């Protein structure tokens, strides 16, 4: 992203307003996060942390209803299942779309992209009915299946272009060495498409960990709730009294893994957008 100096906002006269503007913007974007994190451990009347700094609000969260560990576990199960299914499906389908000609190939690819055209909300109600019919009501697996489907358009597209960017000679070289087709894919191609897999996995995790709508509709049993649902229920359970402190703690627990993952994998996050999917 190099531009010649003449297009930059150069010159001393406009330098100071630039710093003020950008500094102010950075503060606006970071302030809500910082305030919530600080406030969750700060003393405040009406919360579980009334005197001195400490983790009282987090302890309240631990004791909330079924306990935060149950909700964390549920969220983790949904996230791991979604990431695993998304990775396997998009790896295999991406390979199929990049390397083989087969009847119905274009139709199937269009169907995958068609998922983008249909609103999530419109499909959740029939999915609720259908999952009930096959005994997957109140099931974390059911939630993960639904979340996986909505990850497929991006993930399969991503894996298709990842495979397409690898020269075919690599497959052939592996097969000449005596590998069967399947182990050629496994041993040679997976390391080559690893960046694509990381991007797909990251997006699948963020989507599954954070999703609110699917568990809201598909889960009624409070012991099966995921963390976003449980934290949202902190508002107004006991006679409309909101535990703001515990809510803040919940938001921090929800946001922290996402922010840490984002900062570590920022390159892969940005890559998802650079993949060409959005070049129009």
């Amino acid at each position: 992203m190099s531009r010649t100096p003449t297009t930059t906002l150069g010159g001393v006269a406009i330098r100071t307003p630039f710093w003020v503007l950008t500094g102010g913007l950075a503060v606006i974007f970071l302030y809500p996060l910082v305030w919530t994190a600080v406030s969750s451990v700060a003393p405040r009347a009406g919360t579980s942390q009334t005197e001195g700094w400490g983790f009282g609000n987090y302890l309240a969260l631990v004791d909330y209803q079924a306990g935060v560990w149950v909700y964390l576990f549920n969220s983790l199960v949904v996230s791991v299942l979604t990431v695993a299914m998304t990775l396997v499906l998009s790896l295999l389908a991406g390979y199929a779309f990049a390397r083989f000609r087969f009847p119905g190939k274009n139709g199937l690819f269009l169907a995958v992209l068609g998922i983008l055209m249909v609103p999530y909300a419109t499909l959740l109600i029939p999915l609720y009915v259908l999952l009930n019919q096959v005994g997957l009501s109140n099931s974390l697996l059911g939630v993960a299946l639904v979340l996986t489907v909505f990850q497929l358009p991006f993930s399969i597209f991503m894996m298709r272009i990842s495979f397409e960017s690898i020269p075919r000679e690599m497959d052939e070289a592996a097969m000449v060495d005596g590998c069967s087709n399947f182990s050629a894919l496994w041993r040679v191609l997976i390391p080559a498409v690893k960046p694509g897999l990381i991007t797909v996995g990251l997006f699948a995790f963020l989507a599954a960990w954070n999703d609110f709508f699917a568990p809201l509709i598909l889960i009624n049993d409070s012991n099966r709730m995921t963390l976003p649902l449980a934290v949202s229920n902190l508002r107004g359970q006991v006679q409309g009294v909101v535990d703001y402190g515990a809510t803040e703690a919940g938001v921090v627990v929800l946001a922290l893994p996402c922010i840490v993952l984002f900062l570590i994998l920022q390159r892969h996050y940005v890559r998802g957008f650079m993949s060409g999917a959005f070049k129009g």
Partner: protein
Amino acid sequence: MSVGALSSPPVRARPARRGAREALKGWLYAAPTAIFILLLFVLPLVTVFRMSASDWPLLAGDRGINFPENFTDAVRNRFFLDSVVFTLTYTVLATVLLIVLGLGLALLVQESTRWKGVLRTAFLVPSALGLASASLLFYVLYSPIAGPFAELMHSWGVSFLGTPEAALWSTLFLIVWRYAGFYMLLMLVGLQGIPDEVYEAARIDGASRWQIFSRVTLPLLRPTLALTTVLCVTGSLLAFEQFYILTKGGPDNSTITVVQLIYSVAFQGQNDLGVAGALSVIVLLALVVINFVQLRAFRTTEES
């Protein structure tokens, strides 16, 4: 699967047979996805149309045809018109704000310097949060009891969620905070696609900075603008979490979106999946039409 070893160079199968074998292998790799699509996308899509034409209470299940009635009931719902108007208003405001601010931020941090890299990260961090988490965060932030502006709100007599207008703009602020970095990133990808030579040529011709922006950058950015607009309009028309968590549709039912209406018809009280299905079909068709019109509009301006 030792088929692959057999098809390696020494054995030259006839082209037709090779094609058939390739097709079989292709399908084997694509089969899991095809099954997923069929069972978890095509089947529910068919079901929602069936639902929209059936008498279908939440607990009792399908009780036969109820064709035009579901749709007339859907349109006659006392929140239908209000929710459509509100959703459209919200969509227009959110789209204009996010496209303008996304592009503005992108232009601001376009060059790679260390400070601009820091800024880009700062703008992007909120987009790693889930919409539900972000809504809960602002629920506390906007609170007249626990928020950082609580005392200010008391002394000035204002509230973030107390009036319909305040609730709308407060939600818009949350959405801008959560998504501006995301749209900035998309704009940056688009800006990167414009070759330096084009700017060079414009500068040699003596174009001012504003002229370069309006005559070079904007027209060449059209594909990106089209994509981001379609993305933003679609997302906003389907808004749910931010209102469900932040405003709960209030005050005075002033912030009910269409998707919230579908949810409440299906699961809160009425428990009528037939009418909810009819509303879903209406949303689905409206979305197809709106996206079609948008893409058409962007294409015709390109030709002219």
